[in-house]
């Protein structure tokens, strides 16, 4: 029997995925950086969800200038500081994030990419087939773990996701190569 909550979850799947991920990530972050108990971290997480909701509905957040996950983490930090007066958070909200310099290092090999090639990639990542779109976006953009992704997209285990991710990456590379070849002959 479909409950009201089932309807809300079904109609807001992306939202559900986002908060499911942020809950785990935020609680781990809060416990590590603010020495909060599990219960306190859960309270801060929930307060942060409501604060984000209030900000959006009050018109304080209309359009994002950073990732939603980064914004939410900052809200968590603010809420945690409200709870603990002398808390000193680390400078980096996410130590395991991709390093912009390292990304540029790899991109810079063989002289970088043209604007056409960048636009081709943007087009490809917007139209990835399922489940590649879910896996690649969840892993590289939302920075979810393999275990989390396995749970959300109903794969049997993290290793299955890892293998599928690699296959998806191969498909994306082949697709990209074909698009670039067509561009060269235009």
């Amino acid at each position: 029997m479909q409950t009201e909550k089932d309807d809300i979850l079904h109609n807001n799947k992306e939202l559900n995925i986002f908060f499911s991920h942020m809950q785990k990530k935020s609680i781990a972050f809060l416990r590590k950086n603010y020495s909060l108990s599990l219960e306190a971290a859960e309270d801060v997480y929930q307060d942060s969800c409501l604060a984000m909701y209030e900000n959006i509905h009050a018109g304080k957040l209309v359009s994002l200038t950073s990732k939603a996950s980064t914004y939410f983490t900052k809200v968590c930090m603010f809420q945690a500081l409200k709870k603990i007066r002398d808390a000193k958070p680390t400078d980096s909200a996410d130590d395991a994030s991709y390093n912009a310099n390292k990304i540029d290092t790899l991109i810079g090999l063989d002289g970088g990419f043209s604007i056409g090639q960048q636009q081709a990639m943007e087009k490809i990542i917007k139209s990835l087939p399922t489940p590649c779109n879910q896996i690649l976006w969840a892993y590289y953009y939302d920075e979810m773990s393999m275990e989390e992704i396995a749970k959300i997209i109903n794969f049997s285990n993290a290793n299955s996701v890892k293998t599928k991710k690699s296959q998806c990456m191969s498909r994306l590379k082949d697709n990209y190569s074909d698009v670039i070849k067509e561009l060269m002959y235009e």
Partner: protein
Amino acid sequence: MNKDYVYFDQQVDKFLRNQMSEEEAIAFMSELSSDVEKKERARIIALMIKSMDKVGIEHDQQIVNQIKGLSKSEFKKLIGIKTTLISLFPKAMKYGIAACIACTLAFGGYKYYNYQQTVSLGNAEYNAYVADIDLEGGYRGDNANIEIESKLRALFSNVKNGIKISATIKELDSIYKEALSEESLYNNYVDDIAWNLAIAYLKDGNREKPLILLEDMIKRNEGYSEISLPAKELIKKINDL
């Protein structure tokens, strides 16, 4: 071939997250410079991540828009935030009371039906076991004690007719405990008492105590089907209720 890339993709990830030691990073870059396929794959992964950062903002904006489209209660349901008892108390109280009443009515109704069934069984089964004490008169053997038999006759009459059941149960229960001792004058009538007490409990709506009494009757009279058989049959009927 793809198996190699599973490990390779992990290495690319490690490099991009700045999680390699200096030596590892040097070895990684050296591998890329000697393998065109791997270098191209690593570059494309890096380009993909950078593109996702740019395109992802649009994706995240959908998150914001979706939140905007939800009411606070819907949002709380989605997040799994438990609503405070204080704010809901009057409402919860109202619904709680209604639920309690509904449950009581439903469960109370069921209990009453159950009770009726139990009483009916007691009424129907009284004569299934024929006591040696004849209610019309007479007494048991040479060891008969007229006084005791008169007392028991009166109590058994109450059980048969459903009169003063609670008081009768109390008295029969006391007598039964005495009757279990072989030295007691009531010992000769222990099974008569057990049967009547079991029936009395049934007529009082109690199913558990009759079962114990009847089981004891069976244990005492394993070789005597005249006593054990009615007891077994009544146990079955109680369990079938």
